[in-house]
C-alpha cells in the first residue's frame, strides 16, 4: 500500500498587498508531505516559510491554489476546525495560565472530560520531560522549558500534523542540539507528521526525513537530506547547503555511462548524471570540497580527464579534516578542498605547493540553471 499524503499543496500562490506594493510571498508552490514524516521547509529569512505554515494552520488564505489534508480541501476551514497544531516561534504561551493550564487549553476547547484532561496533561508533560512543572507559570521557566511547554500544548490534542516555526532559533547552541534530538524522538514516538521550518541547513539535514529548499517564495528542490546534499539541482541549493565549488563547462558526448565536460579553466571532468541536458550545452557544475582528492604534481605528467592543476593558497587544520584553498589559473575564486586526516599524519601539502585536484565522476553534479 502506498504511503498516504498527509498534506497536498497544489500550486499555491500567496500575495500580500496590492498593486505596486504587492509581495509574492509564495509563488506557485506545490508539495506533497507524507503521513508520519519529518518534513522540513528550509530557506533564508523572507523566503515564505512562515507564510506557508500559516496557510496550513489557517491563519491566512491562499490567493490561489488548493491545500488538501488527507484528501480534504482545507479552503475556508477556520484554524480552530483544522486538525493541525502549531508550535510558534516565540512559543506564544498564555502568560496568565499555569503550565498545566496551557497544556489543558486545547483539550478544554475539544470539551474533554475533566479527569481525562488531567490524565492527558500529565502524560504529555512527562513526554516532554516536564512532569511536576504543571503548577508553574510560563514566566517562571527557562527558554528551553518554555519551548517544551509549547510542544506539549501543541501535542496534547493529538494533531494529525504538527507545524513548527523555527522552534529552536531562540535557544543557545547546546540547548538547540539537545532539543533537536528531543524533537526527533517525539516525532518518532508519536508518529505525528511534523512540518518543521528552519533557516539552519545543518538542522534541516540532521533532523528531516525529507526537506524542501525554498527561495523567494518558490520551492527549488524537494528530497531526502542525502539527495539534497549530494544531488543539488540548483545553484542556490548547492550554495545554501554546505560548501560547494562551482565550475563552468560545456557538455560533451556520453560514453560508457559517463558524460564528458570540457571545463572553461581547461581540462576535462566526467559525470554520471546530466539527463536534463544535451550535448554542447553550457552548464554549471557543483563539486563538494570533500569529494575532491589532492595529489602531488610529480606523480604523472599531463592533464588527464578528471585532473586539474593548481597551487595551494591556504591550509587550515580542522582536526577531523584539513581544508585547502587551491588557486587555479583563470578561475576567479580558489577551489575549496577538504581532505580527511589520516592517523598522525601532518598535511602532505603546504601553502605554495603545486598540486593536482582529482575530481571523480561521482563528485560532479550538473546543475539545472
Amino acid at each position, binding site marked *: 500500500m502506498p504511503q498516504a499524503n498527509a498534506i497536498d499543496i497544489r500550486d499555491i500562490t500567496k500575495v500580500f498587498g496590492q498593486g505596486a506594493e504587492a509581495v509574492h510571498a509564495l509563488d506557485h508552490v506545490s508539495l506533497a508531505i507524507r503521513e508520519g514524516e519529518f518534513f522540513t521547509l528550509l530557506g533564508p529569512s523572507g523566503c515564505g516559510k512562515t507564510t506557508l505554515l500559516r496557510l496550513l*494552520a*489557517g*491563519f491566512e488564505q491562499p490567493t490561489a491554489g488548493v491545500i488538501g489534508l488527507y484528501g480534504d480541501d482545507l479552503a475556508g476551514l*477556520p*484554524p*480552530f476546525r483544522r486538525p*493541525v*497544531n*502549531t508550535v*510558534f516561534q*516565540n512559543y*506564544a*504561551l*498564555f*502568560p*496568565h*495560565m499555569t503550565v498545566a493550564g496551557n497544556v489543558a*487549553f*486545547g483539550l478544554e*476547547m*475539544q470539551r474533554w472530560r475533566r479527569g481525562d484532561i488531567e490524565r492527558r496533561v500529565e502524560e504529555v508533560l512527562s513526554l516532554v520531560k516536564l512532569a511536576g512543572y504543571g503548577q508553574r*507559570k510560563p*514566566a517562571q521557566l527557562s527558554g528551553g522549558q518554555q519551548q517544551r511547554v509549547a510542544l506539549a*500544548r*501543541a501535542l496534547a*490534542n493529538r494533531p494529525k500534523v504538527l507545524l513548527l516555526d523555527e522552534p529552536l532559533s531562540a535557544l543557545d547552541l547546546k540547548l538547540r542540539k539537545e532539543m533537536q534530538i528531543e524533537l526527533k524522538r517525539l516525532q518518532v514516538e508519536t508518529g505525528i507528521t511534523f512540518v518543521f521550518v528552519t533557516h539552519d541547513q545543518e538542522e534541516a539535514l540532521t533532523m528531516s526525513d525529507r526537506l524542501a529548499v525554498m527561495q523567494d517564495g518558490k520551492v527549488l528542490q524537494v528530497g531526502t537530506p542525502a539527495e539534497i546534499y549530494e544531488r543539488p539541482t540548483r545553484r542556490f541549493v548547492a550554495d545554501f547547503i554546505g560548501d560547494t565549488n562551482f565550475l563552468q563547462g560545456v557538455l560533451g558526448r556520453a560514453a560508457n555511462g559517463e558524460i564528458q565536460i570540457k571545463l572553461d579553466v581547461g581540462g576535462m571532468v566526467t559525470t554520471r548524471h546530466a539527463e536534463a541536458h544535451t550535448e554542447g550545452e553550457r552548464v554549471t557544475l557543483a563539486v563538494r570540497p570533500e569529494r575532491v582528492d589532492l595529489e602531488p604534481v610529480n606523480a604523472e605528467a599531463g592533464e588527464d580527464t578528471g585532473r586539474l592543476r593548481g597551487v595551494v593558497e591556504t591550509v587550515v587544520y580542522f582536526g577531523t579534516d584539513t581544508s585547502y584553498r587551491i588557486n587555479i589559473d583563470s578561475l576567479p575564486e580558489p577551489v575549496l578542498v577538504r581532505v580527511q586526516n589520516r592517523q598522525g599524519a601532518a598535511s602532505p601539502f603546504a601553502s605554495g605547493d603545486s598540486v593536482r585536484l582529482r575530481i571523480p565522476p561521482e563528485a560532479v553534479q550538473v546543475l539545472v540553471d
Partner: protein
Amino acid sequence: MLAALRRSQLAQRTALLAPSLAIIGGFMVLPLILMAYVSILEKGTHGGVEWGTYSAEAYIKFLFERDLMGSLSVNADYLQIFLRSFVLSGVTVLLALAIGFPTALYIALQDDRWYRNLLVFMVTIPFWTNLLVRNYAWIILLRNNGLIDNAAAWLGLTQEPIDVLYTPFAIGVGLTYSFLPFMVLPIYASLEKLDLRLVEAAFDLGADRRRALARIVVPLALPGIIAGCILVFVPCLGAYVTPELLGGSKSLMIGNLIQNQFGAARNWPFGAALGFALLAIVLLAMMAYALRFRRAPGGGT
C-alpha cells in the same frame, strides 16, 4: 562615606517629595481634617457651623429621623439616595463596559497605526467641551419634542411623547456618555499591549472567537477593564452636574444631596458627614482592587 551618601540621598528624596507633599497636605489632608471636624459640629442656624459645639447629630441624621418630641425613628430616605447612586453608577459601569470594551477592542485591532491613533484621539474629543454644555446638549436630545422624540414620532415608532428627560434613565444615558472615555482608554491601553499571537495560538488550539475572547483577551485585559470600571464608578457616585440637569427632583444622587446641604438646607455638618461616607465607600472599593491585583496571576500591569 556611605553614611554621608545615604544622608544626602535622604535629603534629595525629601527635597524631591516636598512640593507634592505640600500640595497634598495643604489641599487634601487639611481640608479633609477640616471636613471631619465640621461633620462633628453642630450646625449654625443660618448655615455654617457653631464652632466648638460637638454633636453626632449629622451621623445620626443619615439613618434616623428625630420627630418633634426628640425621639428617633429609622429614616431610609438618605439611604435610598445612596442606594440609587450605587445602582445608577453600577448600571453606568455596565453600559460603559458594554459599549467601551468592543470599542477599545476594535481600535486595538486596527493595523494602521495612524488610523488607530485617530480613533483614540476621537474618543478624547468630548473632553474638549465643557461637561455642562454636553449635558445641556442631552436635554435637547432627550426632551419631549426634542430630536429623539421627534425622530421616533416621525418614524412612527411612538404615538405619545417619550417622557425620558428627568428620569433615572436619562441620568444613566448622561453618565454613560460622560464617562465612556474613562472606560475606553484604560481598556485600550491594556488591549494594545496584548500579543495577538496569543489569540492565534488560542484559535490554533481549537478556540472559536467567543472562547478566545473569554479565555485569552478578557483575562489579559482585566487590569484595564477593572481600572476602567473604577474610573467610571467612582466619579459616577459623586456626579453632580448630570443628575442635576437630566434627573428630576425625584432622582437625586449623592452629589446633589451633599450640594444641597451646603446650599439650601444649610446643614454643613450633615453635608460633611455625607462626604465622608462617600469617601469611605470609595476607599474601600480601591482597597479591594489593590488587594485583588496584588494577588493577580501573571503579574498583569
